């Protein structure tokens, strides 16, 4: 892990928003959003997860760090002004019970920057509500996030039900578990499984490029 990520993790744990903002803004000057997310935020939050797993910090520390990280993300990446080209729609949600939403929040930003209209639902969205919104709004992509093994048994149900909607959305699965286990048995052959934020960032870039090529 780089020095900046370690420092950022320290400021998250201290609740020091000003210093956290300073580091992120410095890094943002000569990096893309994807680079800031993948080389600064993600290692910092993974490190905080490791500290918690090793009982070096407690639940209160971890919640404070999460809250500060969330505030910093909202301040550094405020509402994205969409261009006129926005025609694609994506829904982004965490499975029922899943509380780990920060990765999905960053991915939502990447979708927006790649000219997608999005509905980002944060943590814990029960399937029935995901279905009713998807039926009405008809997004071409639905991104699902799962980070805790307890929630994995529900993944298959989400994938099957959402893929079988009449407008046939593409389902993308990501989150901590996608980088740790083979999730294919809980998905269909049409599901895209994205191991990390860089993979999804690159996929969005390729998708954008494909659209431009098709338009020529």
């Amino acid at each position, binding site marked *: 892990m780089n020095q900046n990520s370690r420092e950022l993790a320290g400021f998250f744990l201290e609740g020091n928003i000003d210093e956290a903002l300073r580091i992120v803004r410095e890094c943002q000057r000569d990096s893309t959003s994807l680079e800031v997310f993948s080389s600064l935020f993600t290692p910092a939050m993974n490190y905080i997860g490791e500290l918690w*797993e090793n*009982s070096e910090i407690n639940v209160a520390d971890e919640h404070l760090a999460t809250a500060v990280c969330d505030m910093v993300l909202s301040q550094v990446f405020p509402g994205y002004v969409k261009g006129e080209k926005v025609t694609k729609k994506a829904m982004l949600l965490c499975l029922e019970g899943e509380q780990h939403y920060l990765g999905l929040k960053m991915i939502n930003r990447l979708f927006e920057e790649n000219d997608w209209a999005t509905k980002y639902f944060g943590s814990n969205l029960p399937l029935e509500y995901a279905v009713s919104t998807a039926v009405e709004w008809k997004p071409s992509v639905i991104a699902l996030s799962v980070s805790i*093994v*307890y929630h994995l048994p529900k993944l298959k149900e989400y994938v099957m039900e959402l893929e079988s909607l009449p407008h046939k959305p593409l389902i993308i699965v990501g989150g901590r578990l996608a980088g740790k286990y083979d999730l294919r048995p*809980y998905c269909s052959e049409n599901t895209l499984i994205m191991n990390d934020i860089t993979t999804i960032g690159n996929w969005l870039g390729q998708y954008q490029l494909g659209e431009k090529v098709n338009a020529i």
Partner: protein
Amino acid sequence: MKKLPIEELAISVTEVMYENDPTLMDRYGDKGRRKCIEDNEHHFKHLQTAYELQNGQFFTEYALWLNGILSKYGMTEELLIENFKLIDDLLEREYKEYEATNDLRNYLASAVQSLQESALTAAEKGRG
């Protein structure tokens, strides 16, 4: 699958642990007993998840991860193995007819074996 009565099971296992070793109460008190119930709830939740996913690997990885944390507090793998054996006894004694019991007992046996193997590897490294 019918859900396991996790809270009830966690309390039963903890009671047996404290009956078998009365010094636990002297050493860790009521707070320790409550933590033990909480830990056992996690064991059962992971067992149930592994069963729902039909993949014992999830339980074994959980056991190895947890053992890594416990070892930082100076606890040996024996404690966790003993705990898993008590869960196994309870399932065999009172949940024989339950549809998931055979699978759950297999997951426990695999986890115990992995814990023993990892202890052996660690001991060999220590000697080397």
